[in-house]
Structure formats: structure tokens, C-alpha cells
């Protein structure tokens, strides 16, 4: 049975270590903050200029001046500080984020990531994703294993415009978890499968080569 979005987020939360500074992308990655284990102290960065992002506010306490990178209202914590966009990305580009968790349209077996554009169709733009994959020490991708038409998302080579070349370290889908030890050409290795998923089924639903 495929993992739910919350189960995927919970699995991604295992990647967070005590003391980490983490940037969570929009969508499923946002859910990861609900699954951080007790005793694991993590500081969340929001690339619009906030370090130490708290949970959503209680109804009636929303502040239009206090949003996250997904434009959602959030709250501050006792560790919070704010800074400009240039300072925020100085931090990201400068390699100070231990981890970033992002969504994907395609991940290739060489670690390429595409998640910002479908030529002629979707023109939302890269936002901060290109900066995050270039700067964060470790990139975890959370995505459905297949698209809505059953097409592959974990592919031999990306067909969509890249967000970054050779940047993905861990891929968590609703079917499985893939990981590679470094970015020097090592293949992704299957490290976990959802209960009831078989290796044959997984291979059939995957375009990328991986080791099991």
C-alpha cells in the first residue's frame, strides 16, 4: 500500500538531525515539520527572510507581515530573527542550510532535479528552488512515485528544464526511499519500500536505474 502524504512526510522527518537548520519547500515538504521527533531540535528557515519559523497562528492571530515562503501565515518563536531576501539567500548560497526538502516533477538517476517549469504550459518560475539545490548541504526530494497519468517521475534523464544538475541526495516517494552516498556518480540505492510494494512493481513504475 502506498504511503500517504503524511507518512511520506514522517519518513522525510527522519532525515532531520538535532541542531539542523532546514528549509522546507512548498507542498508536502511543509508537512514534515509536523513529524519532527521529540528531542530533535530543528530550526526552520523560510527563504522570504525568517529563521526560526513557528506553526500556523491561531485563528484571529494571523499577521499579514508574517508569512512563509508559501505565502501562508505563520508565527514566530523565541529564537526567531528576520532578515532581507539578499541576506536570506546569502545564508542558503553560502551553504549554511544543513538540509532542504523539496518537491519534484522529475528526478533523474544522475541526481538531476526538475520542478519549476513545463515549457509552454506552466510558467510559475523557480522561486528559491534553484538556490536551495545549489546551496543546501543535503537535498531530500518528496514526490509521488508516478504522475497522475501513471508516467515516470524517477527517470533515466529529465525531460523538463532542470532546477539543478546532480543535486538530489535522497528521494522519498509514496512507494519507496532511494538514497545515494555522494554526488560523484554513485547510483541511487533502494533503502526502503512501502509495505506490500514488490521490487518488480517498483522497477516497472520507475524509469531510473537504481541498485536494490
Amino acid at each position, binding site marked *: 500500500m502506498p504511503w500517504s502524504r503524511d507518512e511520506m512526510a514522517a519518513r522525510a522527518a527522519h532525515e532531520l538531525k538535532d541542531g539542523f537548520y532546514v528549509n522546507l519547500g512548498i507542498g508536502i515538504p511543509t508537512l514534515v515539520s509536523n513529524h519532527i521527533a521529540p528531542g530533535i531540535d530543528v530550526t526552520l528557515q*523560510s527563504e522570504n527572510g525568517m529563521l526560526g519559523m513557528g506553526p500556523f497562528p491561531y485563528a484571529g492571530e494571523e499577521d499579514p*507581515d508574517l508569512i512563509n515562503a508559501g505565502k501562508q501565515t505563520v508565527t*514566530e518563536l523565541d529564537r526567531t530573527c*528576520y532578515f*532581507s531576501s539578499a541576506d536570506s539567500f546569502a545564508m542558503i548560497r553560502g551553504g549554511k542550510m544543513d538540509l532542504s526538502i523539496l518537491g519534484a516533477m522529475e528526478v533523474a538517476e544522475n541526481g538531476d532535479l526538475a520542478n519549476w517549469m513545463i515549457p509552454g504550459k506552466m510558467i510559475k*518560475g523557480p*522561486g528559491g528552488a534553484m*538556490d536551495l539545490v545549489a546551496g543546501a548541504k543535503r537535498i531530500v526530494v518528496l514526490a509521488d512515485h508516478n504522475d497522475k497519468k501513471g508516467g515516470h517521475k524517477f527517470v533515466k534523464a529529465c525531460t523538463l528544464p532542470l532546477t539543478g544538475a546532480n543535486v538530489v541526495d535522497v528521494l522519498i516517494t509514496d512507494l519507496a526511499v532511494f538514497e545515494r552516498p555522494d554526488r560523484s556518480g554513485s547510483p541511487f540505492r533502494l533503502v526502503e519500500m512501502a509495505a506490500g510494494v514488490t521490487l518488480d512493481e517498483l522497477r516497472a513504475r520507475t524509469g531510473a536505474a537504481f541498485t536494490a
Partner: protein
Amino acid sequence: MARIYDDAAAALDGLLFDGMTIVAGGFGLCGIPEKLIAAVHASGVKDLTVVSNNAGVDDFGLGVLLRSRQVKKMISSYVGENKEFERQFLSGELELEFAPQGTLAERIRAGGAGIPGFYTKTGVGTTLAEGKEHKDFDGETYVLERGIVADLALVHAWRGDRFGNLVYRKTARNFNPNAATAGKVTVAEVEELVDRLDPDSVHTPSVYVRRLIVGHDFEKRIEQRTVRQRESA
């Protein structure tokens, strides 16, 4: 040294011309110079190149300038909230230059800081780096990105003093302090004019602010109102 004006239209008087480049602060609808944008709209100035992380929404912020067809070109990182934008772009009526958000922020900062170009890893290997100069440093490849200087910068601050020193509030800071440095002329709207700001806590020094207005009844629209439930007692 800022001069204080009665309203946004007065503050922009003489500064607007067709074909000009405007850089605006704000992220989404947070911290956008809403009064100044409305006054640019009312002025009818056209063929604008607008540098801003986002393009507002259809009926608020920079979206109103798109709807009125005053914008020729946007330089942005993300325009996903704006349907009219998508329509104009896909139909070829609007030019668009995408920049990664951090590259955009740094390009604006660089422009303000007299730096015409800098190298970054961001975007290397993507279409956004195509046609740009690449260079290796210590075995890694970087792409050259250009500083941005605009004819006019529009920013929204929380508090200002009569000299033009500015302080921003929470995540409404975002691109504002960077934009404030990158205009040949910078106009700021503030929510409150105060006698004295803490000199250790000023975000934008007065040297950057030529004109200032104190706005009232800001809309400050929330794009995604997300809340949590109170735990029951």
C-alpha cells in the same frame, strides 16, 4: 535625506516616464509598496520593466499594472499567483526574465552596491544560465549574473524617521531593503513616522531614501490564511 510628501501621487511626481525600470520590494503580497504601486497605476505610465520577486495577484499589487497593460517586461522569480500574467505571457504580450530568487535578490543588492556582476553556482546547468558567461573557481563552475540598477525603487517600510531612515517589520522586510539601494531614486511608504529610531536597528539608512510618504489604511492583504486549532482545555 528624505523629503516628506502628502501622498503617493505627489511623491512620484516628476519621477515617472514611459519605458522606465522600476524595482519594487515585497514577497507575494507581503510588504509590497501598495500605495506607491496604486499611484503608478493611476499615473498611466507605460512600457515599464518591473523588477519584483512576484507579480502580485490579478487585482492587487503589481497585478493591477499587468491588467492595465502598463508592464512591458517583468524580472521575477515566481509568478504563479497571477492568472493574467500567465495569459499575457503565453500569448506573447509580456516579456519575462526569470531569475532564481536568491540570484534576483543578490542582483538587486549588487546593483545598489556598485557591483556590476558576480558569480554564483545557482542555476548552473539550467536554462536560466544559458548564454551567460561561466567561470571555474577552485574546480567548481559558476555563472556570471549582473547587478540591477533601476530608474526608481519603491519600498514599503513599517517605521521611518524624518531623515528617511527605515525599519521593516517581520517578513515584510524581504526584498525591500535590497530594492531601496538599487534605485537611482528611491521612494518609500511607511506606516508610521517616528521621532527617533534605534540607531543600531535601522534597516535602510537615510542616504537611500529620497522621498517618503506616510500611508493610511493599508490593505495588507493575506494570500494564504492558514491557522491551527486551539488545543481544547
